[in-house]
């Protein structure tokens, strides 16, 4: 993770903490294996927090809501098709 020269270093620490806490809430006591086997979900969460290197949302609940909504969309699509091929992992 790289930061600009003029960024507030202490704030970056906060953002990292924020990201980890969100992951924690999503995966439930996140550990390294979670990140490895569910890397695409990790990326989805990251995309809800940062875009173009800037913080997108400061409220954890909103982030969760977004992720949950998108996951349910995927689930709904899975139900509709109900084929094995939709099971990625």
């Amino acid at each position, binding site marked *: 993770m790289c930061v600009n020269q003029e960024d507030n270093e202490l704030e970056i*620490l906060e953002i990292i903490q924020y990201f980890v806490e969100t992951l924690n809430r999503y995966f439930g006591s996140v550990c390294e294996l979670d990140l490895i086997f569910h890397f695409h979900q990790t990326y989805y969460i990251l995309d809800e927090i940062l875009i173009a290197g800037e913080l997108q949302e*400061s409220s954890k609940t*909103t982030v969760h809501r977004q992720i949950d909504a998108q996951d349910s969309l995927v689930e709904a699509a899975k139900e509709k098709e109900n084929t094995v091929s939709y099971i990625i*992992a």
Partner: protein
Amino acid sequence: MNPFSSETRLRDMIRAIRACKTAAEERAVVRKECASIRAAVSDNDNDYRHRNLAKLMFIHMLGYPTHFGQMECLKLIAAPGFPEKRIGYLGLMLLLDERQEVLMLVTNSLKQDLNHTNQYIVGLALCALGNISSAEMARDLAPEVERLLQFRDPNVRKKAALCSIRIIKKVPDLAENFVNPVASLLKEKHHGVLLTAIQLCADLCTVSEEALEYFRKKCTEGLVKVLKDAVNSPYAPEYDISGISDPFLQIRLLRILRILGHGDADASDLMNDILAQVATKTESNKNAGNAILYECVETIMSIEDSGGLRVLAINILGRFLSNRDNNIRYVALNMLMKAISVDGQAVQRHRATILECVKDSDASIRKRALELVYLLVNETNVKPLTKELIDYLEVSDQDFKGDLTAKICSIVEKLSPEKIWYIDQMLKVLCEAGNYVKDEVWHGLIVVITNASNLHGYTVRSLYRAIQTSGDQEAVVRVAVWCIGEYGDLLVNNIGMLELEEPITVTENDTVDVIEVAIKHHTSDLTTRAMCLTALLKLSSRFPSCSQRIKDIVNQSKGSLLLELQQRSIEFDSIIEKHQNLRSALVERMPVLDEATYSGRRAGSLPAAVSTSQGNPLQIPNGVHKTAAPLLDLLDLSADDPAPQSSSSPNFLQDLLGGDILSSVSQSGTTQPQKSGADVLLDLLSTGSSLAQNGSSTADILLISQDNKNKTSVNALDSLSSPMANSAQSLPASSIMDLLDGFGPSPTVPNDNGPAYPPLVAFESSSLSLVFNFSKQPGSPHITQIEANFTNKSSDIYTDFIFQAAVPKFLQLHLEPASSNTLPGSGNGSITQKLRVTNNQHGKKSLVMRIRISYKLNNKDMLEEGQISNFPRDL
């Protein structure tokens, strides 16, 4: 089931890869997987495409090449369903970057997705665009993104705002389009949208001046109000981080206020209250609070001054400094370095804490603190600070000692109040860490010692003591050996005692002992031993009774395998034995080395091509300047001091050289609009130098001709000038003067100050005549057009006729092509050539020009040269 077919789940593939014990095994597994994925890609398999892409992404994260899967991303993005798009966009962001041409193909899909009804798909597209769009894509899709800034769903609005940041970065021209939408976004309530809008606003302001002005006028008050609300808002669990409500928003607001307030007094006024409130009310026991305070301090330092706030800011930094957390202390030290330029006094108050940080256990804090101390040092506090630093030097780590020594030495050098203190401190440093000290440092010390003539006795006695205790520090040995050689008689006879000294008894034999030990010590390197030999020679003259013993010691180096030592020992031996009469004259007391010259040269010039054997004043008779030359700075010691620009050395040179003729010599050596002009001059000088009897001058002059570069020629002229400055050695100077006078033009009475300038016979010889016709443009009195007419006085034809001219530095010369290269004889025709001269010192100095004409006469090369100094005065 084939373990590597598309039916394998992602999970299983990951497990298989993780189970590999060696790198080779892993490569084999990955290769098989890639093969099956490639097969699936070419089969255009629809069902497992997303799974294959997920596998591909994992393989990519491991570091293997995955370009064959790029088209898969595109196909998935083009698929209608949300899950496919989701993984397709993720693949796009991971496997591709903006430099790939494949990215262009996605533009259309992106456009459609940006207009999709499903807001999550719009979100996906914005995310992908924001992370990896290239400039062309940005340009194409900017209108869509702009429209989305006003979408109904706040989540889409915030993503659109961040996407716009990237668009503006890639295509700064589009910035104006975003200014208006942003202004309305800044009034939102939704924190996410507000956050992103502020970011966008900040980037707009950095990119475009007009945007900055616009936001400054319209939005500053609004933003101040938002900050007030944010700071005073009650507890909201949604945004709470360690007790502070939405610190991210507060930090962003502080940052945008900084951008808006920088350089503008009115805007800064509006912010004063809220900044004071934030600075005082924010709790600082958690990192979030500290982050806010840090941002607040940065803002206060950047906006226009309002006394009280600055003090508040520096106090906060002081509090940070005493915090136990290393991060916070580091950040505080960083900020203090910037704060010094703003308010040095306030920072001085925290000097003690900063000194403590120099001794910290964390290496990066030590470094930062040391740099800060260096900036803080001034005449009043230099003594206690140096004392502290030297005390710490004794206990510091090895890797830190180098930095510390360098800084102490430059502090001492810059700010020492009196010479004796300087010498004392340097001695202490050398004794502690002499091996870390750079060469210029002890060179400088020697320069100072020679200048402090009343302290010679004191110095040599202290050095004598020092070498007994710290003989392992190379620098101490060198300085001590040099001083003992120079001032040995003061040492033995206890001359020049100061009140604070205790008398010591040192016999002549003791001094020779010291040097003998130094020369025989196994760690002494070439320079030290060479210096010892020289010192022994000096002592043999000052202490004739020890001559025999010294001779024996010197003889031992005769067989040395190092050329320098062998040469010196043989030469010195012959001096001691056969040339007793010369000896005392040779090793007379060194003249005082000029400090100003030394520090002037140190500060930005390159080493001259003179022998850099240190501490060897005997080789060249005019010892003063040639010895100063080796003491040139190879690397600038004080990195923090801006080294005076190289332009200072030519000015310094001007002072040394004085005289007009020499000034044109130096100036033409430096910059010439025409290289041919410089060549004229160089050739002139080199023909003159064959008359010169000082061989080293020739070497220096030839140095000019080889390298036209500014600095080297300046330095060569420097050494050239030194024999000239030395009155006894005016021979090369006079030879150059003769050269210049010898080619003087046949004097034609200059017509005085006619407004229409009469033609001037610039140059006349037996075979050639050159007439200048002047004209000036109205309105540009400093530019003169000259038409040069060449006439052939002999009856032969001159071919390959080339005219060259050189002018001093304050003039600029432009030569146009000549009318022809052949000059028919007996005045049957002439060659004309136009020149344009621009006089930067019009009115103060008149034109001066040196010319050179070369032509072929009966296939023989001929050359004529001259100087034209009889231009009309006010040209």
